[in-house]
């Protein structure tokens, strides 16, 4: 069952030098119980896509979409109150930096129960019990005494577990994790990813995981969307993308990974990301693409293959080229 279906999402940001089209017509689907990874370099619009979905955008940003269907509702037509009823309730957010995502002035307990109390209108005691259960579930010891502590008294790893517990308070149908491990130590990263994966399986929730780390994607995601300069350039099942990438950008990303473990951060593809200001025609990647030709300046067709693998390129099948590097 398709739980979330985004069609033609666009996000424009007004700047001094003109309108910045940060997200340019993104389509994305999430099935119930599925983990979808959005991967790309910083500034490609992956975080904005997720924030735009919930309407959590900076004031200067303008969102438009043909449709954002979430559980039989169209979020583009939802009122502010309806959106707030969904946020934190049906959709939980896990943020990147646990050091700044928690309010320094309130206790862990207060911040954990706040959303639950608002959405469920229950007694404080029940919310506290739920919080303790989730703290235990996320592997935090002495959960009850943590509730009266303040964020600055906890380590980064603990705080990220709390941010995760906070996202899970209302048993959301969809969890959006925006670079959930980027700010953490390597050892803690693996634990946190394991935790998200376990909880997702347990709660049968859909997950959108946003990352620039292909290793995270390989470990977590059932399906992947690769974003470049505001567009999804390739999407499909994780195994298919890793085994037979089609878009030259994806190929570049994968070839930058250390081969042995297929883990690691996005490496360097030569060249600069084009300016996002103003409209664009043709392929955005052609400034850095080793296969750029004249047709790359025109509109690009989307190729689709059985199994849901699709890509946006003038070259219909790149399989031959993957072997090259």
């Amino acid at each position: 069952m398709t739980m979330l279906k985004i069609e033609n999402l666009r996000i424009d940001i007004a700047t001094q030098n003109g309108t910045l089209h940060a997200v340019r017509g993104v389509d994305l689907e999430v099935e119930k119980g599925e983990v979808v990874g959005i991967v790309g370099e910083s500034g490609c619009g992956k975080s904005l896509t997720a924030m735009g979905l919930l309407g959590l955008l900076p004031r200067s940003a303008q969102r438009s979409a043909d449709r954002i269907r979430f559980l039989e509702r169209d979020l583009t037509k939802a009122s502010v109150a309806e959106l707030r009823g969904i946020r934190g309730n049906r959709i939980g957010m896990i943020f990147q930096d646990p050091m700044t995502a928690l309010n320094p002035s309130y206790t862990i307990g207060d911040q954990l129960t706040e959303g639950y109390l608002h959405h469920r209108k229950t007694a404080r005691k029940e919310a506290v019990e739920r919080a303790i259960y989730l703290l235990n579930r996320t592997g935090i010891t002495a959960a009850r005494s943590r509730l009266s502590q303040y964020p600055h008294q906890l380590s980064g790893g603990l705080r990220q577990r709390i941010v995760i517990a906070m996202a899970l308070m209302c048993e959301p149908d969809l969890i959006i994790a925006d670079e959930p491990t980027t700010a953490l130590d390597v050892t803690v990263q693996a634990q946190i990813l394991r935790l998200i994966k376990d909880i997702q399986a347990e709660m049968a929730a859909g997950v959108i995981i946003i990352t620039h780390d292909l290793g995270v994607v390989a470990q977590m995601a059932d399906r992947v969307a690769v974003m470049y300069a505001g567009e999804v350039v390739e999407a499909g099942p994780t195994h298919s993308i890793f085994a037979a990438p089609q878009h030259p950008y994806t190929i570049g990303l994968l070839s930058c990974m250390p081969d042995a473990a297929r883990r690691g951060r996005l490496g360097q593809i030569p060249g600069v990301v084009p300016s996002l200001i103003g409209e664009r025609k043709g392929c955005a990647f052609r400034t850095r693409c080793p296969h750029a030709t004249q047709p790359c300046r025109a509109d690009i067709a989307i190729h689709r293959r059985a199994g849901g693998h699709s890509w946006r390129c003038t070259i219909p099948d790149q399989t031959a080229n993957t072997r090259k590097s």
Partner: protein
Amino acid sequence: MNATSNMPSAPDFTRDLEIVAPLTPRQIFLRRARRHRGFLFGAGVILVIAALALLAPLLAPHDPYAQNLISRLQPPVWMDRGAWDHPLGTDQLGRDYLSRLFYGAQFSLLIGFTAMVISGFIGTSLGVVAGYFGGRVDLIITFLITARLSMPIVLIALAVAALLGSSLTIVILILGLLLWDRFAVVARSKTMQLRDADYLMSAKALGMPRWRIILTEILPNIMDAVIVVATLEMAHAILLEAALSFLGLGVQPPLPSWGLMIAEGKDFLLFEPWLIMIPGAALLLLVLAINLLGDGLRDISSPEARS
């Protein structure tokens, strides 16, 4: 273009995706300055007032000290009984108000500027030394700043002026010696930010003497911030001078300070309120212009500071 130069097959198709060429800092400054209304207004008004002050001997219609008891308290030209002979009227001794206003601008600007230079020198030196050397030196200078902030400056300025006997030099010295705190605070924090910068490290590694590092590496880099403080402190000094003169402990009669003009006009507040309105409005305009210039400079040199 250079991004793709190592890929021979690509360059022809990339031209329309180029990134805008970066502007030089100077170009950026001028471009932002031209768009900043507060800055333009402030700079314009200051230029006009400075011109009027400098050219007062040429522009003033009368001698600012020439008394004429027959035509005393003549109102400005737009009121009944006003006449073009004295466009802004005359004061209680029959002196031409417009001429006194022009000459008064000289005092405001002179006192404001020199007091700002003195306090700027003291405060910036202290701040840079504290920020650069850190440790105990910083502790002592921070303590001095705290102590200075704890003293009621208006009261001390008045008391010292009263005890020493007031004169132009003394007013300048008092203000210069009292208003250095903000310079010190800003210079200190800016220097601390710079202290560990790579280019300072390399200068140290090259064995450059400390005073040269401070003069050639630090000062130029904190100047933007210091200039902004300088404008605000000049405005502050002008206001304080006016207040001192208003209380009779600043510029002494018959010199035409704006604060003194307001004090002299105060006695006629009931029937001739324009006597205080005119110099007050001039003072407000000048201080407003300097502040707007300072705020503008801050916005222009570091737009992130205002967000």
